[in-house]
């Protein structure tokens, strides 16, 4: 079974860390089916990883670390259940007992227990914060302390949030199951929303100094890849992965050496990750070939047009605008309408886009969203209406939290004030 013989400590620690990164979700998902309870399963999986440090150092690293860990964790779960029958009767089972012993009777619907785990963590009866925290903890294996730092709350607060969510799953009997075909579109959308939220939180941290939190971005990309492996026929899963890859291909150019924000139009396109862009474009095209495009595939298509354009002005803006029109149909969100307004400005000029911005301001749903005044400010800047632009930059600054974005807005404000004062005739 072992390939390394007596492993030295470094090799073993590395192997355990590696198995933690790669196999955590797989091991936990399989163990949860036996344990019938996520809390117990998590405990047993943690114990199995601790046991691996000793056993692997003694007997060598097994050929299939994931299988070893799963067997160890399942054994611990069964022991715990046997040791205390009262304990078992107290626990609401996630799955019916007879289902546990069956050997994957419905292989087609559930190729892997990880999907059950993911769908359970993202169940609509849990609020979004709980879904995000549970998915990071249980599916990605991120420690509670690290999750609390990512979301800028204290560790006890995050621990309480996770405990509350696990308790609800158990008390309200949220089933450990992949939803049936009739429910799948809605339920899948919740899963994709959570993965996308990891990405956007990591990509533009809502506050604090780092524009990008690389860990969260990596977790989002990994999860999207896992989802595509598990659900290869869902075009929206493909669309989400494509969107993440295409956006991430520009990661290194979004900020300069000083950590300052660089706009899409000013980014160094020669530094974009071409291999990633190729992969993203292929995934997007595949998603479109299925004929059922949703909001992620459409966003990926927009991202791919940006990714392949020689420069900002050379982007196929009419096609971008058509895609935004489609996107608005399947996802009537004011944020989409705001992004569409930028495309309108490139096709029909800033004045037409300002009309759209006015409509969005009357709509009111984006009150408090700093990108609304920021886009208005940019349109006014392009028109040379400096004093109005300055007022809009001030409004955006009042609402923005991210340090890199604030610095960008402050610089643009200074430019607008300077240009305005240099042209006294401007009204």
């Amino acid at each position, binding site marked *: 079974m072992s390939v390394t013989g007596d492993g030295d400590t470094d090799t073993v620690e590395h192997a355990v860390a590696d198995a933690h990164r790669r196999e955590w979700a797989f091991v936990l998902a399989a163990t949860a089916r036996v344990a019938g309870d996520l809390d117990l399963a998590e405990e047993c999986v943690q114990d199995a990883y601790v046991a691996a440090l000793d056993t692997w150092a003694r007997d060598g690293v097994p050929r299939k670390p994931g299988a070893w860990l799963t067997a160890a964790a399942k054994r611990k779960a069964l022991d715990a259940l046997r040791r205390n029958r*009262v304990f078992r*009767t*107290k626990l*609401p089972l996630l799955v019916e007992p007879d289902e546990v012993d069956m050997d994957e009777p419905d292989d087609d619907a559930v190729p892997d227990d990880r999907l059950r785990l993911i769908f359970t963590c993202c*169940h609509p*009866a849990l609020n979004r914060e709980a879904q995000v925290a549970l998915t990071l903890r249980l599916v990605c294996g991120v420690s509670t302390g690290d999750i609390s730092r990512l979301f800028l709350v204290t560790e006890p607060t995050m621990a309480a949030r996770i405990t509350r969510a696990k308790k609800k799953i158990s*008390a*309200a*009997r*949220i*089933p450990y*199951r992949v*939803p049936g075909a009739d*429910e799948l579109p809605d339920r899948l959308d919740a899963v994709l929303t959570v993965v996308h939220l990891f990405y956007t939180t990591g990509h533009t941290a809502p506050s604090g100094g780092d524009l990008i939190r690389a860990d969260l971005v990596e977790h989002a990309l990994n999860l999207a890849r896992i989802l595509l492996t598990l659900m290869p026929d869902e075009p929206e899963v493909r669309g989400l992965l494509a969107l993440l890859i295409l956006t991430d291909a520009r990661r290194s150019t979004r900020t300069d050496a000083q950590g300052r924000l660089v706009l899409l139009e000013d980014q160094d396109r020669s530094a974009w990750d071409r291999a990633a862009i190729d992969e993203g474009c292929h995934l997007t095209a595949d998603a479109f070939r299925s004929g059922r495009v949703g909001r992620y595939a459409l966003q990926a298509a927009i991202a791919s047009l940006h990714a392949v354009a020689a420069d900002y002005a050379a982007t196929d803006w009419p096609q971008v605008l058509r895609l935004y029109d489609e996107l608005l149909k399947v996802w009537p969100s004011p944020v989409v309408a705001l992004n569409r307004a930028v495309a309108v400005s490139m096709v029909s000029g800033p004045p037409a886009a300002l009309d759209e911005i006015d409509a969005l301001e009357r709509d009111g749903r984006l009150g408090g969203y700093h990108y609304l005044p920021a886009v208005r400010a940019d349109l006014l800047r392009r028109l040379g209406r400096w004093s109005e632009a300055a007022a809009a930059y001030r409004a955006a600054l009042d609402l923005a939290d991210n340090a890199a974005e604030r610095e960008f807005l402050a610089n643009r404000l200074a430019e607008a004030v300077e240009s305005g004062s240099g042209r006294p005739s401007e009204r």
Partner: protein
Amino acid sequence: MPQYGIFVYSPAPADPMDLSPEYAAALDRYAAQIEELGGKALSGIALQPSTTATSIRGDVVTDGPFIEAKEVVAGFYILEAPDLDVALRIAKLNPATWDGGVEVRPLFFPPAE
């Protein structure tokens, strides 16, 4: 099977004598729908309108429901269902969701020890 308390909320005062004919017809069908979806309604009760309620907080007695709100509890029943997904599917068909809503909450059983 797990059991859930289903609280039915309707616009105040939620007078059961004022139900529309459509609502009453939907309620008649609902019992059969619960069974079809794999659940079972155990005991259920309807309440007089909230204008007949009296509330006590501390030692203060007031006329009306405990929490002043647009919607008030109109009734309550116990639903047996294999899991929350089934319970929610059943709850979504409740005609109370047309102009009010329902709350689905697992019943508490003291730990067996």
